[in-house]
Structures are given as C-alpha cells and as structure tokens.
C-alpha cells in the first residue's frame, strides 16, 4: 500500500510539473568549454536579479559544478517568463591537465582536470534528468562543427527539448555567426556578446518567446 501511495504521489508530482503554470522552467546553459556560458549566465542573472552565478575565467573548465540561479524573471514585450538558470560545466570528450599547466602548478592542473571530468558527468546527468530547455552557447570565432556540439545537439533534439543556439563572442574579429547558422540550420541562432552585452535585447526576447 505504501508503494502504491508513493507511486501515486510521484505521478501527481509529474503531472503537477507538466501542467503547472507557476513552476519555473529549468533552462540549462550548455556548450563546450570556454564558450562563455558562465559569462552569459552571469549577465542574465545580473540583469534580472542583481546577483552573479559563478566565476568567469579565460582558462577552460572554470565551471566544474553545475550552478543554479532560481526564479529569474525575464520580462519582454509584456511577456514574462520565470526560469531557473543552470550554468553547466563545459562538455568535452577529452580533458588533459597539461592544458592548464601554463596557468597553475601540476597538482592544481590535475585536480582541475579531474573536477572538470566530474563536471562533464554531472552536466550530462542534468541534461538527462533535470532540464526543460537548453541554451546552447558557442564561441562564434571557433568552428562549430565538432563532435561534442553535434552529439550534444543531437541528444537535445532527441529529447525534444526547446533549444536556442547562442553565437557568443561576436565582439571578436574572427567571429562568424553564419558559420553557426549553417552548421545548425534547424535551430534559431542568436548572435551576442555576453561579455560586452551586445544584442541582449534579442537574447531576452528569444528566451521569453521560447521558454515562456
């Protein structure tokens, strides 16, 4: 009987979640390392709540634990959406501490590498269990067609999650938004510079429209 009650509770929890207007959608910010995910998360959080989410760094894998900012209310054109933002560790298929040894000593680099690997596992776990929509952040100065990007976007598509692709770092000289649009023509691509705050109006409009 206890089992049955539990089951019933769990079903009603699921249906509550499906039909509740109030429940904030949990939006995962995904992408490869150093695409500017935390910079974006911080900008969104600062713009709408005044707080930051995490530390930004030019060294890859600064974010090694998923961080969440809850109840971020974004208003655009009279439309309001409340979301939980999850800033996730950069997803990659290889982590090598030697990538960091210029910046820190070997022990720290190894630890960073190990934590980054755990972070990827955690990010993938979140993707499976806990997100209702995805903002996929790419460095528009880099080639978007990589194994990680293709695979992750494929996973997101297979789950039918709403996804926006953010072509970040348009302030860089090598930036090419078109390259990203061509790589993933099936999704809406929004150019922005999270660091410089460029085109954030369109960013928020899109978030309100897609995840509202």
């Amino acid at each position, binding site marked *: 009987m206890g089992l049955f009650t539990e089951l019933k509770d769990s079903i009603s929890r699921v249906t509550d979640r499906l039909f509740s207007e109030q429940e904030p959608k949990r939006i995962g910010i995904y992408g490869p390392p150093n695409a500017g995910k935390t910079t974006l998360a911080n900008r969104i959080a600062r713009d709408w709540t005044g707080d930051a989410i995490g530390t930004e760094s030019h060294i890859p894998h600064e974010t090694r634990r998923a961080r969440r900012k809850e109840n971020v209310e974004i208003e655009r054109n009279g439309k309001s959406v409340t979301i939980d933002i999850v800033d996730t560790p950069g997803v990659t*298929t*290889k982590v090598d501490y030697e990538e960091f040894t210029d910046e820190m000593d070997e022990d720290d680099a190894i630890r960073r590498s*190990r934590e980054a*690997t755990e972070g990827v*596992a*955690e990010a993938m776990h979140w*993707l499976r269990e806990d997100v209702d929509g995805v903002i996929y952040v790419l460095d528009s100065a880099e080639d978007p067609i990589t194994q990680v990007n*293709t*695979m992750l976007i494929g996973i997101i598509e*297979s789950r039918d999650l709403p996804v926006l692709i953010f072509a970040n770092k348009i302030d860089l000289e090598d930036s090419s938004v078109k390259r990203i649009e061509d790589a993933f023509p099936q999704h809406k691509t929004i150019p922005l510079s999270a660091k410089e705050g460029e085109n954030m109006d369109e960013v928020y409009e899109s978030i309100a429209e897609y995840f509202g």
Partner: protein
Amino acid sequence: MPHECTNCGRTFPDGSKEMLSGCPDCGGNKFQFSPTRSAPTETAPSSDPSTSEDPRTEVETDDPPTAGETVSGGASTDRVDDSSASRRDDSESSESVREWVRRKADENDRRVDTSDFAEWPDSARRPEDRTSGDGESDPDRSTTRAKMADDEDSAQANARTSVVSDGLPTGTVEGTSRATQTDDDARAVDSGGAAPTEPDPAAADGDDAPPEHGRVVSEPSGDRPSIDELRAELNEQFESIKIVRPGEYELNLMELYNREEYIISLQEDGRYVIDVPDSWRESDS
C-alpha cells in the same frame, strides 16, 4: 575479486549487485577495482609484455553502473554483461595508451559522420558502414591491429562462451538474442568474419562460429580489421570515463548521458565513488 570496499576491505566479484546499495558490512560507498585479481588465466593477453603497466591505470569506472543497469533485467543477461566487461578489462591492459587514444580518435572521427543520435549507442554502426575501416592503408597500423585483434578474439570468445553457457544451448549467434547491445556485438562479429559488405548475420555464422564451441570468433587474421572497430564499439558501450592517466580523461558522452547512475567523485588509481540513485525504482513500479 575485482571490487574491494575501501573502507572495510570486503571484496566483491565483478558484477556483484551487493555493492550497488553500499557495502553490506560497513555501508561504505567507495570501492576500488582491480581487474588483475579476476580470473586472469582465462585470457591470453596476460602474457603480453605491456601488461606490466599498472593495471589500475586501466581501470574502468563504470563496471558497477553496468551491473546497476542490468539489475532490472533478466538474470541471465546480467551475467552476460558482467562477464563481457570483465574479459574486456583483461584484454584492455594489453593495449598501450597511445594505441587506445589513436584508435579512439579514429573512432571519433568516423562517428561524426555516421552517428544517429536517436539510436546511438544502441546501434553500433550498421554492417554496411563498416567497410570504411581506416586501418588498411597503413601497414604499421595494420600490424598493430592484427595484434590487438588477437587479444580481442580471446576476450570476445570468452565473453561469448558465457553468453552461450548462461542462456542458450545452441551456441549460435542468433540464439543470443537478448539485450540489444549484445545483439549488436554479435552482428559486428559476424560482419567482421564475413565479407565486410555482408549485412546478414546468418551468412557468416556457419563459417566463423562453430556452434559446438559456442564461439563466434575464430582465428584472427590481419585481413579482418573490423575486429578492432568492434572492440572500440564494445568499449564505447561499456565505458563512460577512461582514466588515461591521472589528470587525463576520455569521456563517452553518450554513456554518461544514458546511465542513470553517475560518477560523483573520480579518484585516481582505480577508485571511484558512484551515486546510486533509486536503483530499484523501475522494478518497484
């Protein structure tokens, strides 16, 4: 006894389900994995010089999750998965890190073109796709792969024998229809044995897998490069995080995504901590 509780020292056989809910003696949830202590006599590769590497650097972090995944399945399939993983560990140690990384890179390159996200990794590449093996043009690599194929054969054959003895008396590949993973394995082995373009598993069966031995793979030879592709696929299926060396890791994103358990703490030298979330949830409902 490859799994050992790091707290009280209790050991568990490979694939043990006991440890999924923590050590029954002390409740600890840290285990270390030492493949060398698990029935090493069954596989040829133990004579390979490269096994002098510390086997713990080769340790897979996902064996307990593998067992966890099969908990809700049938009993016979559990043992199949476990034994496959165990044999693979043994054969794994005969491959140098460099070879592994290179092969992995090859595999990754191909996968970008061929993967189908809705199905993968359930679907290994289809047999007709395997004709695009990349090892043939490079004599050095062919040699290497022939050696690797040798290792693979004994590991695979042992695993396959387990399949047969556990489940079905016929010993035919078709008889092993069980979880999709082994189905894919079986198909892959078949196509490796037959002409690479042959998509029909049954066609190769008679040639390569004498039913009385319950073995799918016969003697290895250099002209069957798809064996190492098969091996790579097997690795892909079982492995989520590969510790190349302390501080260097290879991650299988699909595996990480697909499994319910996830690794919450990764330590060197074969130690790991896994989260075991609601392992019994499915069977309860």
